[in-house]
C-alpha cells in the first residue's frame, strides 16, 4: 500500500513552511473533515504529524510526546486518534475500505517513530483496495475492478473454458446456417409454386402436374431434412450443454474447496451456492442456446434484407420505415419491464427469505407464541409481492400486443403496396407471398433481438462472478514443493500475530513451545483467541507475522494434506454431515472397519446411545436426518477424531455439552487417547483439563501465563483466580482437587 502520496503544490508549501528541515516519512490521504468529503493529507515527518487540507495546515502534533495512536472503526467512517501529552485528539477521519489497512501500518510507523528518531520508513506489501485506473474499489478482496473490466476479456476466458467441447459446440452454428438457407428457400419455392402452377389455374394455360408434384416433394423433403437436423442439434446441445455445466461446476467447486476459510467466510452460503448453480446455468444457457440463436437471427435478418432489396427495393424501404420507431418502442418497453421485473423479483425474494427465516426459527416462534404476528408479517410482504407481480403482468399483457402490432406495421404497408402492384399486374401473387414471408423473417427476430443486450449482460455478470472466484489466489496455499512429514508432535509457535482482518489483531505476539506428546490446556475468557490459535495450528488461516513450526518445519512448507491428515479435531460447533452415523464416524478414515468404528464409538462413550437408535449405526443424521442432542453429536465427533488416530489431537470445548458423569467417562477414555500424542484442549470447565501437563492462559490475544497447574496456582494470576472462582461456584467439587491434579501433572511431566 502506498504510504507516500504526492502533495499538491499548495499543500507542499504549507508543509515545508511548517516543518522546515524535518524529513518527510509518510504522507497518506484522509477523506472526511467536519461533515464534508474532502481530499486532505496527513504528512508524517520524523518528528511531527501534520494535517493538511487545501494548502492549509490544520494541526501539527509532536510524535515523540504522543503515546497512544489508534484507529477506531466507527459507523460510516474511521477515526485516527492520537494522544499527545495526555490530551487525546481526533486527528482525521477516513473511509474504511480503502484506508483502514493503510492506517494500521501508519500506527505501527508512528509507534516506531515515537520510540526512536530518524529511522527509515517502514515498508509493507499490503495490496491497494481500489483500482488505480478509475479509483473505484475492488470487489470482494480481489483485484478485480468490474468498472474497468473489458467485456472481451470475459469472452476470451469463456472461450478458453470451452476446450474439448468446441467441436460439439460448433454444430448448432452449422445447423443454423442450413436453417437460414432453407428458411429462404421455402418461400422462394412456394412463390414459384404459386406463380407457375396455382395462379395460372385461373388463366388459360396449365402447368405440368409433374412439376407441381416435384415442388411439393421438394418442400416436404426440405422440411424433413430440417427437422432431422433439428433433432441432431438438440441432442448435440443437450450433450455439450450438460457437459459444459458439469465441467464448470466441478472446476468451480474444486476451486472453492481450495480457497482458504477466510475468503469463503467473506461470502454467504447463498452467494456461493448461487455461483455454483445459477451462474453456471446462465453461462451454459448463453453458450448453448443464446449464442447460436443470436447468430441465426442476425444472419437471417441480414440475408432477408439483402434478398428483399434485390427483389423489390421499394418494399424493402417500407419494411424499414417503421423499424426505428419500433426499435425505440421495444427498447423502452423492455427497459421498463426490466426494472419492474427486478423489483418484483426483489420483493419475491424477500418473501422467500422471510419464509426461510421463519422455518429455521420455528421453535422460537412457537415457543414465544408469535405465530399470529408472523402470519401477519408474511401476509403483508406476500401481498406487496403479489401486487407488484400483478402490475407487471398487466403491463406486459397490455403493451406486448401493442408493441408487436407496431413492429408489424411495415408488413401492412407491404401488403397494401403489393396489392396495388398486383392489381396493376406489375407483380405476381407468388412474389408477393414470397416477399411477405421475408418480411416476417425480418420482423420476427426484431422483438427477440432487442432482448439480446439483456441476455448478454446477464451472461457477462454471471461469467465474471464465476471467474472472480476462479482467479482468486488461495491465501493459504501449498508452496511449490511441499514437504510430506511424519509428524512427531512438537509445536513451536514463534511471535505469532494474527487477525482475521489484518488491522484488527486477535492474537498478538504469541510464543509457545509445546513438546511432543504433551497435553496442553488452553484457557481464557470467551473471545480471548483460543479457537483462533487452534485455527492457526491447523493452518485454516495463515499467520500475519511470526511462524508456527511443527517438528522444526514451518507449517507453510508442509503439504496441507500431510498436515491435516495427522491432526484430529473435535470442534466447538460439532457438524455432522447428512449420512449415517457410521459414515460420520468414518469421515476422515473411510477405510475403517466396522470393528474399529464400534471401538471408537465405545471409547467416546457413544456406543450405548447409538444402539438405542432405531437403525443403530446406520441411522441417518444431519440436516434431514435424525436429530441428535448436542452432547450426542459431540460424542460422535470425538469418535470421529479417535478413529482418525492423529498425531496431534485438538479438542475445542469438546466436552462442553456433556453432563459431568459422561464427561468423566470420556475424560478417562481420552486419557488413553492422548497418551503419546500432542494434545491441545480448550475448556472453560477447568476440571476438564485436569490431565493437562501444562496450561496456556490467553488474555485478550496475548499469552498471559504458561506453565503447570502448580506453577500457575503459585503465581496467583489469572488462572488462580479462575480456579478459585470455579471452586466457589462448585465447579470443582472438593477442596483437594487442584492439588490432586497438580500431583498428576508433575508425575506426567516427570
Amino acid at each position, binding site marked *: 500500500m502506498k504510504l507516500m502520496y504526492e502533495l499538491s503544490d499548495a499543500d507542499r508549501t504549507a508543509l515545508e513552511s511548517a516543518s522546515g528541515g524535518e524529513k518527510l516519512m509518510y504522507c497518506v490521504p484522509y477523506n472526511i473533515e467536519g*461533515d464534508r468529503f474532502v481530499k486532505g493529507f496527513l504528512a508524517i515527518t520524523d518528528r511531527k504529524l501534520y494535517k493538511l487540507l487545501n494548502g492549509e495546515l490544520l494541526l501539527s502534533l509532536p510524535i515523540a510526546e504522543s503515546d497512544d495512536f489508534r484507529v477506531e472503526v466507527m459507523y460510516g467512517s474511521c477515526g485516527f486518534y492520537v494522544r499527545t501529552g495526555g490530551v487525546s485528539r481526533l486527528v482525521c477521519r477516513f473511509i474504511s475500505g480503502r484506508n483502514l489497512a493503510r492506517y494500521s501500518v501508519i500506527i505501527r510507523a508512528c509507534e516506531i517513530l515515537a520510540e526512536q528518531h530518524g529511522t527509515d520508513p517502514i515498508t509493507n506489501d499490503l495490496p491497494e483496495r481500489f483500482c488505480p485506473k478509475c479509483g473505484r474499489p475492488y470487489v470482494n478482496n480481489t483485484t478485480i475492478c468490474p468498472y474497468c473490466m473489458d467485456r472481451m476479456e470475459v469472452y476470451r476466458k469463456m472461450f478458453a473454458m470451452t476446450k474439448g467441447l468446441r467441436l460439439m459446440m460448433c454444430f448448432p452454428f452449422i445447423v443454423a446456417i442450413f436453417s437460414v438457407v432453407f428458411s429462404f428457400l421455402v418461400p422462394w419455392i412456394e412463390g414459384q409454386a404459386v406463380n407457375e402452377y396455382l395462379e395460372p389455374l385461373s388463366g388459360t394455360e396449365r402447368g405440368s402436374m409433374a412439376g407441381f408434384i416435384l415442388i411439393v416433394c421438394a418442400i416436404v423433403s426440405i422440411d424433413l431434412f430440417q427437422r432431422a437436423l433439428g433433432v441432431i442439434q438438440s441432442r448435440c446441445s443437450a450433450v455439450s450443454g450438460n457437459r459444459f455445466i458439469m465441467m464448470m461446476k466441478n472446476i468451480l467447486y474444486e476451486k472453492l474447496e481450495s480457497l482458504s476459510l477466510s475468503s469463503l467466510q467473506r461470502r454467504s452460503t447463498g452467494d456461493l451456492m448461487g455461483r455454483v448453480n445459477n451462474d453456471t446455468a446462465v453461462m451454459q444457457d448463453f453458450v448453448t442456446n443464446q449464442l447460436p440463436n443470436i447468430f441465426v437471427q442476425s444472419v437471417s435478418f441480414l440475408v432477408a434484407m439483402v434478398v428483399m432489396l434485390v427483389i423489390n427495393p421499394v418494399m424493402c424501404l417500407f419494411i424499414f420505415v417503421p423499424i426505428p420507431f419500433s426499435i425505440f418502442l421495444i427498447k423502452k418497453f423492455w427497459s421498463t419491464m426490466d426494472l419492474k421485473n427486478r423489483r418484483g423479483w426483489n420483493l419475491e425474494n424477500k418473501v422467500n427469505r422471510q419464509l426461510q427465516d421463519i422455518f429455521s426459527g420455528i421453535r422460537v416462534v412457537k415457543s414465544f407464541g408469535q405465530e399470529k404476528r408472523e402470519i401477519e408479517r408474511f401476509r403483508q410482504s406476500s401481498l406487496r409481492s403479489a401486487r407488484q407481480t400483478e402490475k407487471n403482468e398487466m403491463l406486459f399483457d397490455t403493451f406486448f400486443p401493442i408493441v408487436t402490432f407496431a413492429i408489424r406495421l411495415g408488413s401492412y404497408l407491404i401488403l397494401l403496396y403489393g396489392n396495388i402492384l398486383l392489381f396493376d399486374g406489375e407483380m405476381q401473387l407468388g412474389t408477393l407471398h414470397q416477399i411477405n414471408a421475408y418480411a416476417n423473417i425480418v420482423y420476427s427476430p426484431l422483438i427477440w433481438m432487442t432482448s439480446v443486450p439483456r441476455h448478454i449482460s446477464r451472461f*457477462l*455478470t454471471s461469467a465474471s462472478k464465476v471467474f472472480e472466484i476462479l482467479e482468486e489466489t488461495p491465501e493459504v496455499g501449498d508452496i511449490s514443493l511441499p514437504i510430506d512429514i511424519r509428524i512427531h508432535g512438537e509445536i513451536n509457535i514463534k511471535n505469532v500475530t494474527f487477525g482475521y482482518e489484518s488491522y484488527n489483531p486477535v492474537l498478538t505476539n504469541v510464543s509457545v513451545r509445546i513438546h511432543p506428546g504433551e497435553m496442553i490446556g488452553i484457557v481464557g475468557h470467551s473471545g480471548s483467541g483460543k479457537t483462533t490459535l487452534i485455527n492457526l495450528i491447523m493452518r485454516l488461516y495463515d499467520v500475519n507475522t511470526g511462524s508456527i513450526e511443527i517438528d522444526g518445519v514451518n507449517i507453510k512448507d508442509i503439504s496441507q494434506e500431510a498436515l491435516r491428515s495427522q491432526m484430529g479435531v473435535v470442534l466447538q460447533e460439532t457438524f455432522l454431515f447428512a449420512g449415517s452415523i457410521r459414515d460420520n464416524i468414518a469421515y476422515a478414515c473411510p477405510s475403517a472397519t466396522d470393528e474399529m468404528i464400534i471401538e471408537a464409538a465405545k471409547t467416546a462413550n457413544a456406543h450405548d446411545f447409538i444402539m438405542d437408535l432405531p437403525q443403530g449405526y446406520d441411522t441417518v443424521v444431519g440436516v434431514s436426518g435424525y436429530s441428535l442432542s448436542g452432547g450426542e453429536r459431540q460424542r460422535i465427533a470425538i469418535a470421529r477424531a479417535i478413529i482418525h488416530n492423529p498425531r496431534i489431537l485438538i479438542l475445542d470445548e469438546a466436552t462442553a455439552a456433556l453432563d459431568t458423569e459422561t464427561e468423566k467417562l470420556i475424560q478417562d477414555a481420552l486419557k488413553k487417547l492422548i497418551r503419546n500424542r500432542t494434545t491441545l484442549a480448550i475448556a472453560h470447565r477447568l476440571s476438564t483439563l485436569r490431565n493437562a501437563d501444562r496450561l496456556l492462559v490467553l488474555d485478550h490475544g496475548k499469552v498471559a501465563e504458561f506453565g503447570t497447574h502448580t506453577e500457575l496456582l503459585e503465581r496467583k494470576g489469572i488462572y488462580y483466580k479462575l480456579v478459585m472462582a470455579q471452586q466457589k461456584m462448585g465447579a470443582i467439587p472438593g477442596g483437594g482437587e487442584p492439588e490432586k491434579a497438580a500431583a498428576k501433572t508433575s508425575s506426567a511431566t516427570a
Partner: protein
Amino acid sequence: MNDTKKKDELLDDDIPALDDRRVSVPLTPENARFYRSEGGLISLELTAEDGEREIFERVAVYRAFPVTSPDEFLSVREVSIIKNEHGQEIGMVRRLSDFDEPTQRLFLEELDRRYFTPEITKINSVKEKFGYSYWDCETTAGHIVFVLNNPFSNIRTLIDGKVFINDIDGNCFTVPDPSKLDASGYKKIEIYL
C-alpha cells in the same frame, strides 16, 4: 492451601478482583459533568454516590438505537486500554435533552462524527457493471461515487420509509424520504425498495 479456612479468606479477597468490571450508572446532570476536552473531544467528571470524583480525559459515546431513537439511551464508554475494542461502559444517558444546551451540542458533534451518514440529495446515475452497482450521487457531504455489492441487500428500507445504503468501502448513506428525490432519481432507487 490445604487449610479450608485460609482458602475461604483468599476467595473472599480475590473474587471481586476477578471481576474488575465497572458498574454502569445512569448519567444525569447531577452526577456527570461533560465538557469539551483540550483536544476537542468529550471529557467527563463523574461524581460517585459517595462523593468521590473521577475524571475521564476522553469518553466515547455510542447510540444504543442509532436508527430508531438516536438521541436517547447513549452509552458513555471509557476508551479501552486494548486497541480496537470498546472500553467499558461508564454509564448511560437516558435522554440527551436532560442535559443543558452546550452539553447537547457537544454530544451531537461527537455523535455526528461517530455516525457519519450523509444524506443523498440527488442521484445522478446508477450503472450496473458485471453485477455490481455504481452510483453517482450528490450528498450533504458533497459529491460521491460509490459501489454496492448487491443493491438488493445493501439498500435497507425502514418501516417509516427511511432508506439506508451501505457501500463496499464502508460508507453509509441515507435517504430520509425517497419520494422527495426528483423523479428520475426516485425511479433509479425505487427498484430496490
